[in-house]
Structure formats: structure tokens, C-alpha cells
């Protein structure tokens, strides 16, 4: 019994040990004055910056604006990727039409598109949403396409032999069979969503976390810069946890080992 509790504690504690040590070293370095606060603020200073920013209502405003951009971009890009992926996976002729162009566009580095996007959309909201949607679209498209194609042909044959036709075959066999891969695409897409958000908000913005960081840089407020970086890390972790919850909810039939989860 004691061993079980110890193991349970280990499982919950283990992921936090390395971050805790890093934080401790960081704080000590700051306290000892080994590095100037303008180069690297101590965790305490970052925390205080967070508190004062939150108290002023700045933090939540920028956070909401950024999260809103991320969500809208993700939903738009994810939906397009899902629809195109399903189309290409299910219909051979649609695949011929769409897959070549998709692979070509995918090969273009997103950053190379930034000047084009600025000329097209200016530096307003649309440019940011466009970049995020574009980034999210590809992993969702690729994984959906792959997922539909990778559905066990034996199950498809069984379904046909048991009289499943048309939409019934999609609903019972093809779509549930593709779902695990789609969710892998969603998780990749979420990662790229934050990455692109940072890039997009750094180009030009007057609100959002990226703006907060750029603004702080102007005034050499290292603690605020670090605060935004920390918030990006937290947002990434939160969205990844949400993706895991989504998997558990949508794929209850999978064993934990199939979900590639450790904890």
C-alpha cells in the first residue's frame, strides 16, 4: 500500500522536478546578482510583473485578444484542412485535384509569406488570422487524409459485405476509423497555432501578447518579456491538455497505450 502511494506521488511529481530545479537555479542566479536584471529578471520579478499587469487589467486584455486570434485562426484553418483531407481521402479524383497543390504550398516556409500577406491584408487582424489558419490547415489536412486512407480495408470489406452502403459506411467505419489520426493532426495544429501567433503578433500589433512583449522590449522591461514567454508556454500546455481530453472523450474505446500517453 505504501509502495502504491509512493508510486502515485512519483507519477504526479516527476514532470515538475526539472522545471522546479531550473526555477530554483534561475532565482539563485538573480539573488546573487550574477546577471544584471535587464539581461535576465529573476522569477520573483517576473511574478511581480505578472501581478501588477494583471491588477491593471492589461494582462487579461492582451491574453484574451491573443487567445481569440488563435482560436478563430485554428477553427478556420482546421475546418478547411478537415474538409479537404476528408475529400482527398474518400474520393480519388478529388485527391488528384488537390493533393499536389497542397504539398507544393506546404513546402513554402510560412515566414516567406509574411511580406505577401502584409501586402495583401495590410497589418490588420486579417493578416494574423490568415497566417494562423494557413499553419493549422496542413497538419489537419495531412493527418485526416492519411487517417481515411489507413482505415483497415478488412473492416471496409466487412462493412460492405454486411450491407453498409454510402453514408452508413462512412458513419460506421470510415470516419470513426480516421478519427484517431485526425486528432493527431489537431494536436500538431495546436502547436503550430501558438508558434504562428507569436510570429504574427510580432510583425505588427497594438494588442495581444506579442505586442506586450515588443512593447516591453522598447522599454527594456525584461520581466514583462519573460512573462509573455512564460504565458506562451502555459497556453501551449493548456491546449495540449485540452487535446488529450478531447481524445479521451472522442476515443473512449482506445486503451491508454494506444493514446500514446504516459501519465
Amino acid at each position, binding site marked *: 500500500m505504501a509502495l502504491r502511494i509512493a508510486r502515485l506521488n512519483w507519477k504526479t511529481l516527476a514532470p515538475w522536478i526539472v522545471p522546479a530545479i531550473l526555477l530554483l537555479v534561475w532565482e539563485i542566479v538573480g539573488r546573487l546578482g550574477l546577471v544584471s536584471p535587464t539581461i535576465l529578471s529573476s522569477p520573483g520579478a517576473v511574478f511581480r510583473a505578472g501581478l501588477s499587469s494583471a491588477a491593471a487589467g492589461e494582462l487579461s486584455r492582451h491574453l484574451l485578444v491573443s487567445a481569440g486570434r488563435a482560436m478563430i485562426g485554428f477553427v478556420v484553418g482546421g475546418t478547411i484542412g478537415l474538409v479537404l483531407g476528408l475529400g482527398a481521402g474518400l474520393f480519388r479524383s478529388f485527391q488528384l485535384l488537390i493533393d499536389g497543390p497542397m504539398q507544393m504550398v506546404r513546402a513554402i516556409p510560412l515566414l516567406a509569406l509574411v511580406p505577401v500577406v502584409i501586402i495583401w491584408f495590410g497589418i490588420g487582424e486579417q493578416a494574423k488570422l490568415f497566417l494562423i489558419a494557413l499553419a493549422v490547415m496542413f497538419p489537419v489536412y495531412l493527418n485526416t487524409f492519411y487517417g481515411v486512407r489507413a482505415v483497415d480495408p478488412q*473492416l471496409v*470489406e466487412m*462493412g460492405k*459485405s*454486411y*450491407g453498409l452502403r454510402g453514408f452508413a459506411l462512412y458513419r460506421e*467505419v470510415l470516419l470513426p476509423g480516421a478519427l484517431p489520426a485526425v486528432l493527431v493532426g489537431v494536436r500538431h495544429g495546436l502547436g503550430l497555432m501558438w508558434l504562428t501567433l507569436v510570429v504574427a503578433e510580432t510583425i505588427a500589433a497594438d494588442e495581444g501578447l506579442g505586442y506586450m512583449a515588443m512593447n516591453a522590449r522598447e522599454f527594456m522591461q525584461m520581466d514583462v518579456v519573460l512573462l509573455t514567454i512564460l504565458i506562451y508556454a502555459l497556453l501551449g500546455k493548456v491546449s495540449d491538455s485540452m487535446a488529450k481530453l478531447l481524445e479521451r472523450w472522442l476515443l473512449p*474505446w482506445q*486503451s491508454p497505450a494506444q493514446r500514446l500517453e504516459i501519465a
Partner: protein
Amino acid sequence: MTGLRVEVENLCKSYSEQEVLKNIDFVVEPGQFVVLVGQSGSGKSTLLRILAGLEQPDSGRALLDGKSSNGSPASLRVMFQEPRLLPWRRVVQNVRIGRRDAEEQEVLDVLQQVGLRDRAREWPSVLSGGQKQRVALARALIATPDLLLLDEPLGALDALTRLEMQRLTEGLWLDRGFSAVLVTHDVEEAILLGDKVCVLESGRIAETLYIDMPRPRTPDALEFGAHTSRLLDRVLGGPGRIPREREIVDDYSPHN
């Protein structure tokens, strides 16, 4: 329900030059249990898949109650070598794939018949291999088919589970009276279950054996041994076909 009459006439099938079936003729009488036995590559699975409408013959016909078999009517059900259950559907819903308008009670009843009523709410992934095949059997039988095609569904099971499944299948067949065609490479299984056993040998029916023993049959019955050795000889190509030492030496050629 009486069972479907199957009539195969002059059936031929080849895959890229390789002739898999050569002029097959055979009949399954309504309610008869026919076993196709042969080594791998003898064409027995292909023949079954043509009956199931999963493959098309190059020439010849396969008639089910006088109608062409392409289109797989609901009166026909296939059990595959693998259970082929949908992992994302619980056992009840998997059985319902067999007949989607089935009432909850009917599903539970057929699960009762295969002895899995208490596993109705499980995911397939937690079931054993034998249990999965029993779910597949329930899924096949809920539509009360007139013809059940079994493509070596017991091949991957362990000896005990296999015995259990053989008894279960035979019991349900006796009870319901459908026609059945079983493909197997197990000679004992063929004699245990078949009214008629056809030996397939490189695409032809090499021998047909009628087995008239009381059911349920056991391997210690008097005729069982005789039937077994006769079938085994035939499946292995007959005692005369085992190459003698001289033949082997003659066949050896360094230029091959």
C-alpha cells in the same frame, strides 16, 4: 427458414496468369454443411469469396437459389478469418451491424446464444480472440441468414477455444437449419462438421467425400480415423505422390 441452395457451374478465376480456380462445379443443398478443405493456395478461400460476392469469377456462374451471387443479399453472411469487429463500437453495436433495425432484446438474445450476454457493454479490445469470434458469429446470425460462409474463422484460435467454437457453430446450425460452407485446412474439423467435404487441389475439386456419421461427432468414433487418413492422404497429394529418393535426385539440376 430452410437454407439456401448454392450451385456453382464451371467456375474459373485467375490472378495475373495464375489460374486459381479451374472449372469448379459443386452444389450445396439447402441446409447442408459443406466443407472445403485444401492446402494454402488451393483456391478454397477464393471460391468462398466468389460465393460471398467479394470477388467476381472470370467465367462460369455461382448461383444462390438460382440467382447470381454478385450483390451479396442479406440472406447471406460471411465470417472472416479475423473477427473484423469495429473497435469503436461496443459489443452490442457490433452485433447490430448484422441487422441495423434489430431490437435491443434480439441483440441480447443472440449474444446469449453465443454465451456473451454479460459482455454486451464491453469494447472489443478487452475480449479474447475466441470471444471476438463469438461476437462475429452473433453479428452474422442476427440477420437469420439462409447461407453462412465461414472463411477459416477458427484458424487463429487455440485448440480448446476451437473445439468450443466448433460445437457452438454446429449447435446453431442444427438449431437454425441454414446452409453452411466452411473453408479450412484442418482435416479433423472438416470431418467433425461436414455433411460433404470437398478437397481442393491446385484449383480443382480433387475429391468429394460424403460423411454420414451421427452428430455431435467425436474423433474416437469408428469411422472417424478412416475418414481422416483418407482425407489427409488426399490433401497431402496422396501416398503415391510423395517423391521417392530417386525422383528427388532426378529432379535436381544445377542449371535450374
